[in-house]
């Protein structure tokens, strides 16, 4: 893996965390219960922390000057972001947010477990080792809510099943292998996505069973995030997130 590919691999880790953290930040003060206001902001906070670490590391691999995490977060355009389409999906209702989180958490967990154990990039390994502790909580939180909503009332069951059906088409992208995944796996930095998929399937299936929810059929899968082709709502997310640093490009805060 060359330096530019190495940087891209790290950008993907940072962008997934940043965009999901940004979405969760929108919930603040609007959650169904005070406990969930705390939980969702707490998860967002973990994700922004992971973002800072991964993007700083990615920026250190820039060809000329080092780029900072903030330059990467606030001064790239839509087409330069490489996060999964799943994490940028609008919050929807609480069920949509929880299902989005649940589908991502196990992918993020198994990916972090691999990264923590490799030696190609020991800085990335250290970041992932810290992130694992956080992601385990996230997965526990989202799984318990999927079960409560799935096995709660008729209304909650039908709503969360709809969320699952709606978001399922974004799960294929997590396991679609491209050039970065191939060279990343060859270097040892990135996991073999097939083996992650096996673990992910069994974790997801176990929770869905407890939740009395039906796993959707694998139909046509949407992809594009990893090559910078995003869904329409993504531009609005960036416009909001980047407004201040864009208005005052030389300012420090």
């Amino acid at each position, binding site marked *: 893996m060359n330096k530019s590919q190495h940087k891209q691999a790290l950008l993907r880790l940072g962008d997934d965390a940043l965009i999901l953290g940004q979405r969760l930040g929108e919930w*603040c003060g609007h959650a169904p219960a*005070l406990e969930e*206001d705390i939980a969702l902001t707490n998860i967002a906070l973990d994700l922004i922390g992971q973002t*800072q670490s991964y993007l700083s590391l990615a920026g250190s691999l820039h060809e000329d000057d080092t780029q900072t995490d903030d330059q990467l977060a606030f001064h790239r355009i839509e087409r330069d972001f490489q996060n999964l389409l799943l994490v940028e999906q609008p919050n929807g209702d609480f069920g949509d947010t929880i299902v989005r989180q649940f589908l991502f958490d196990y992918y993020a967990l198994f990916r972090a477990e691999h990264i923590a154990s490799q030696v190609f990039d020991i800085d990335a390994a250290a970041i992932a080792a810290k992130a694992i502790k956080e992601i385990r909580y996230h997965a526990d939180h989202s799984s318990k809510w999927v*079960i409560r909503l799935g096995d709660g009332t008729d209304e909650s069951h039908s709503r969360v099943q709809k969320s699952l059906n709606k978001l399922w088409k974004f799960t294929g992208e997590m396991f679609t292998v491209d050039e970065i995944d191939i060279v990343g796996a060859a270097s040892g930095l990135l996991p073999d996505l097939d083996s992650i998929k096996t673990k992910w399937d069994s974790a997801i299936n176990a929770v869905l069973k407890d939740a009395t929810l039906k796993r959707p059929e694998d139909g046509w899968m949407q992809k594009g995030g990893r090559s910078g082709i995003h869904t329409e709502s993504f531009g609005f997310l960036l416009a909001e*997130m980047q407004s201040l640093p864009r208005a*005052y490009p030389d*300012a420090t805060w």
Partner: protein
Amino acid sequence: MIQTVEQFDAYVAAEKKIEPKDWMPDGYRKTLIRQISQHAHSEVVGMLPEGNWITRAPSLQRKAILLAKVQDEAGHGLYLYSAAETLGVERSDLVDDLLSGKAKYSSIFNYPVLTWADIGAIGWLVDGAAILNQVPLCRCSYGPYSRSMIRVCKEESFHQRQGYSIMVELMKGNEAQREMAQDALNRWWWPSLMMFGPSDKDSEHSSQNMKWKIKRFTNDELRQRMVDMTVPQAECIGLKMPDKELKWNDETGHHDFGEIDWDEFYNVLAGNGPCNEERLAVRNKAHDDGAWVREAAVAYADKKKKTKG
């Protein structure tokens, strides 16, 4: 054991803590429920104005700090609702009173948060004023309230420092940033002074609450402290206080300052502030939108209880 008003008064006068199972006068209980729940509501509504800026924080570090701060506030809301529940009320009833508009919350949150510098001003001034109000409450005669305030105050002091640090950074920045900081101070200064409540001569609850050791200092004493504390902090970073009458008084050893616009104070309190309707509407929408989620959680817990039982 406390059984009479005289015993209660003597106990409180001796600086001993009243605990949930102790006998207490109805007025004491009522006052505490009102004050603690208003305080909890203020934490919860207070998440909204700052929450608006989480998605627009200008750096990742500022975003992380603001997330941590707003999360603390939700946590304060939880401790305080729990403290109120020790007095024999239910959190859900207290929340209903907030949502119907029957219960009050701090009027400061009815002002709009227009720029990033407002986030600095809120931390510095609003949390600064809150600390001055709350530090004496750590010695409140009611045990659960006193203990929750000890924890709250530790976190609030971080909040105040992060707000001031935003202002410091802006004042070190370019002209637009400095103007943003001054503008925020101009708009937030007077509402922050209003946070200490009506002037002593018009305050209805003060004297009894002092006797019960719920309150330790009068509104005007705390307000004077706020002025004395803030003026040098503003000077230090080059901000100008928006009060032409403000000057140091050698004789009193305090700053003299201008008159608060009490007409504005009572109007915002009565619901006529710039954001009163909006804040309550947002809380109501969150509560209504989340009803199916709370119902599902209860239904699931009930199912599990049955299978266990």
